[in-house]
């Protein structure tokens, strides 16, 4: 169970982007959060993935409040989350080969021994060929790079997936392929999913339920940058 209660968050204490937002995800549930650009949905997704400390409000993971935030939450909690961002170019280290990109979370958590087997397994799942795995981000297309970013999100077998506009930069076929990978992972592991986006048709097709941004926020949200 992932519960966000009365979350207020932003980048300036005097002008929070998200005000008083509440959202609950049951285990194994796929929830789509719909909102226009600039409404603060990406910030809320970052809070839900424990990557951004809220100014106020509580986040409960299986009934236990998340404590000891610094900028982010403690790592042992964060490893339960896999996150995929909108822009693969910005979320991938340009110097790493795709294989190292996928293996990075294993390296960071001291599980190097699992790398060869896990990377090979995931490369097949997301449809990357051995040739592509040896390349750097500038040598592959956006779609191929996002496949690697999804593999990186799955490498620690997270219980929760947070996808922030994962498919916004991609063509229809790659979108359908990546959604199929996420759904297959959820079917085998029972992981929960929070996906954030503005494409109503896609989220209705993909998720168990969709929530409009207005229903999440207690107050009128303040659009970012205005």
């Amino acid at each position, binding site marked *: 169970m992932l519960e966000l209660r009365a979350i207020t968050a932003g980048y300036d204490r005097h002008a929070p982007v998200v005000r008083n937002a509440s959202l609950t995800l049951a285990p194994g549930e796929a929830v789509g959060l719909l909102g*226009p*650009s*600039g409404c603060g949905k990406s910030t809320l997704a970052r809070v839900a993935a424990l990557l951004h400390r809220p100014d106020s409000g509580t986040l409960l993971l299986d009934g236990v409040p998340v404590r000891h935030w610094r900028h982010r939450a403690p790592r042992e909690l964060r490893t339960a989350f896999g996150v995929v961002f*909108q822009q693969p170019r910005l979320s991938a280290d340009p110097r790493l080969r795709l294989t190292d990109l996928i293996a990075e979370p294993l390296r960071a958590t001291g599980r190097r021994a699992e790398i060869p087997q896990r990377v090979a397994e995931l490369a097949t799942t997301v*449809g990357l*060929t051995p040739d592509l795995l040896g390349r750097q981000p500038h040598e592959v*297309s*956006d*779609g*191929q790079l996002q496949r690697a970013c999804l593999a990186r999100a799955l490498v620690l077998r997270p219980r929760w997936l947070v996808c922030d506009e994962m498919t*916004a*930069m*991609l*063509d*229809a*076929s*790659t*979108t*359908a*392929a990546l*959604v*199929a990978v996420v759904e297959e992972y959820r079917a085998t592991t029972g992981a929960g999913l929070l996906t954030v986006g*503005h*494409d*109503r*048709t*896609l989220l*209705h*097709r*993909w998720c168990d339920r969709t929530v409009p941004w207005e229903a999440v926020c207690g107050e009128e949200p303040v659009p970012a*940058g*205005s």
Partner: protein
Amino acid sequence: MRFLMPGGRRVAAVADAHFDVAAGECLALIGESGCGKSVLASALLGLLPANAQTAGEARLGGIDLLSAGERTLARRVRGRLIGLIPQSPAAHLTPVRTIRSQLEETVAELTGVRGQAARRAAAEAVADRAAFPLDHLDRYPHQLSGGLAQRAATALALVGDTPLLLADEPTTGLDRDLVDRTVDELRRHIDRPDAANSGGRALLMITHDLAAAERIADRIAVMYAGRIVELADATAFFGSPGPRHPYSRGLLQALPDRAFTPIPGLPPELGDLPDGCAFAARCDRASDTCAALPPMTEDVACHHPLAGHGPEHPRPAAPAPEDIRA
């Protein structure tokens, strides 16, 4: 169009592309990312890197764009014959100058309007045509939202009253409402040509957003692995009888409001294309004949084009009964 790579390797980015766009018409060039769409656009503007080789011709207003020299391109083509609406306006606009100053410079350069007051008026007129709010003209690009930056870039492309507008992925990363607005505005610019351009203008839109293409285009060109594999009327393509190339059919069936089934596999590397049909490895109708390169016949390049039957909404993912599986 080929690229010479280090070590003598050659990459054929675009091959045998034949198409035309008439005044008052919109042609949408669709295909997966990395299939060569943007290379084609760069070629038309003469913006290819030095290691590129081109063959063939692209005629516009009596000039062959592919063989024209840099001098011709700079003085007569860019901004005057072709207006470019870029993929990411935020990166296209100069970050340290206001929109007004960029528009006025473009007006002075392209139209020969003299005098500060006249330039100012001309810049405001063109901003108005692109539906850019006049009270935002004194802002810098980083102070604009994605939608407004897109309109600012469109205004710059409209200054020269070009007969051809070239839009390279104009809707990537915008939300659905903004996509619809951007696309409708583009359509307005070709439907209602301004007085100065009585012949009307043409729009070549490069996109992977099928919903945007459906909304705006008169005709569709589908590109796969550097080749145009199908040319079709937009109404027939998105409605009935539907696309005829298996790749186009697969693209449409990947949409979330249709079957939502991806095309299996990945597109081939442009540097390592098979001799025959490039799609054969991913095609469920491939047969021995696919080892040869399919010629473009009746606007489709496939040995076994699909007969038209309208892809009505959620069609089953299973192939149609008449399919012959190889």
